[in-house]
């Protein structure tokens, strides 16, 4: 042992935007390392959306008996963006809640004692969750042709962007939920409790038209609704459907008499991202 420990060898720089960004980037990178190593998780999390799309979609589709004529749309086509959203919902929520593991195994402490802000760590986590959710969805996007969705490059790009945004929002929600949870056994039921209603009340599985008032209200207060609708809207923009079919399957979000424009919905989703992430940071600062 002849090593010399010279304090001049390396110095920790004063905090700046650059050091904060590096911290967020390395947290993101760790999520990627874990994603690549955990191949079984990739496969198992693909099973659920595929069942939704091809089993539930085909089954319910035959029940609805949507006319296969020109200008109309198959139920599986309608379901495609919804299933995408469900996949994001579960993958991203899981990514957010995984911070409970970090706490249980102590690694969270290593991250939180570093001379960087808690926000940088959590932004890294949220970006990681969003990336993982997006990568999962790429596999589903590849199947678009099977359900009558065209491979339009612009549509695919827009969908990827919206999926990423949704992933960021849901990972942040997972982080909010994880902030006070000490054990993973407690976290899992909590996620189920929150995620399942978000899925059913988001318009991912059925169109938001002609609903009874109580259900319409619940879907309108669900942040997920405003992340799902832009995705469906992008798909329908690139389908060859008549106005009546579109009104039936993609009625948009209507507040009273005002149809909320897709741009506003996206802005709202960005707002939810900021809100949820800030809430997570606040809760983590108070707990740790």
């Amino acid at each position, binding site marked *: 042992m002849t090593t010399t420990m010279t304090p001049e060898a*390396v110095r920790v720089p004063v905090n700046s935007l650059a050091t904060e960004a590096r911290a967020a980037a390395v947290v993101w990178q760790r999520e990627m390392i874990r994603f690549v190593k955990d191949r079984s998780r990739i496969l198992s999390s693909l099973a659920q959306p595929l069942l939704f799309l091809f089993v539930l979609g085909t089954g319910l589709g035959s029940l609805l008996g949507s006319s296969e004529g020109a200008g109309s749309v198959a139920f599986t086509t309608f379901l495609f963006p919804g299933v995408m959203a469900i996949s994001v919902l579960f993958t991203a929520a899981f990514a957010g809640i995984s911070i409970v593991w970090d706490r249980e195994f*102590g690694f969270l402490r*290593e991250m939180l004692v570093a001379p960087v802000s808690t926000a940088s760590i959590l932004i890294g986590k949220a970006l990681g969750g969003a990336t993982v959710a997006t990568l999962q969805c790429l596999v589903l996007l590849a199947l678009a042709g099977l359900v009558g969705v065209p491979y339009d490059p612009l549509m695919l790009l827009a969908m990827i962007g919206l999926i990423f945004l949704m992933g960021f929002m849901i990972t942040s929600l997972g982080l909010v939920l994880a902030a006070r949870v000490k054990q993973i056994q407690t976290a899992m039921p909590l996620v189920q409790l929150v995620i399942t209603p978000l899925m059913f009340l988001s318009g991912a599985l059925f169109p938001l038209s002609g609903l009874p008032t109580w259900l319409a209200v619940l879907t309108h207060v669900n942040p997920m609704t405003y992340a799902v609708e832009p995705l469906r809207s992008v798909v329908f923009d690139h389908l060859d459907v008549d106005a009546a079919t579109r009104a039936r399957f993609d009625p948009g979000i209507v507040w009273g008499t005002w149809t909320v424009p897709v741009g506003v919905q996206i802005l709202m989703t960005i707002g939810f991202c900021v809100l949820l992430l800030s809430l997570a940071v606040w809760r983590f600062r108070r707990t740790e």
Partner: protein
Amino acid sequence: MNTPAVAVRGLVKRYGAIEAVRGIDLEVARGETFGFLGPNGAGKSTTINILCTLVEPTDGEAEVVGLDVVRERAAVRRRIGLVFQDPTLDAPMSGEQNLRFHQELYGVDRRRAPARREEVMRMVGLWDRRADPVATYSGGMRRRLEIARGLLHSPQVLFLDEPTIGLDPQTRGTIWDYVAELHRNAESQEDGGITVFVTTHYMDEAEHCDRIAIMNEGRIVALDTPDALKAQVGADRVTITTDDDEAALRALRTEFGLEGAVREGAVSIAVADGAGFVPRLFDRLGHHRVAIRSVTVTRPSLDDVFLAYTGTTIRDAEAGPAASRGMHPMAMRMRGR
């Protein structure tokens, strides 16, 4: 560089009605290896957490390399290395990935980062295992990796909270070898080099330190070099086993005016010159027809120091009521983080 590595004045930490730290004063010089001793629940971890900016004090002041731990939190964090009692490694990542993560988090210069990783990993003998996931490391290897990581950003003060807890004696020895090496290097540095602030409740380990503080029930009850503390206790300890302990105690009282104590089935007596005392002891107890079956003479150890200052051995302190007080739910939660 005359600012002390650690300076603490009137430090108090209360959790509700529980006073974990009850007003302590402390100064640690640059380059010193400073031992912080006490039973579980004595307030060691709370104090170290305050110094590492993880817990805010209720009252008093604490500075690390001249920086206030509350007002200059980030600046303190940049200058300290931490090794916690509980592991804080990411098991799926490799040893080197864990270190690289740390360097990025601390914003270490990328051009120097790989060389520094190699340097610290070689120091703790893990360079050959750098690509293996931490999950495959033994407890001792993980601890060594954590110490390497603590040194990665060249901290001015390295805090080690119970670094040897749960390790086998050989690995414990190895850990102390690293501390000794840091200390040797520190002596050759102009600025006094790295200060090591280490908590332990193994008395024998405290011998490795330049100075030690003994903490009990939230207070520092002794603070000096190990030798000076032992000299203060002064006495050798003569322990005898007899056929009749009560008679032996009576004889000690009448013949020598000494108060013996019965501990674990043996009579123990504190005397200035143990070796010289033994012949006289045999002679006088023989007159009282007390048969001595065995005798041991021990020089004072830090265990005796602890005993003298707290009135209990460190093991008894942990098993007894003081320990249950210390392991209040709040203290448990602190530890759990």
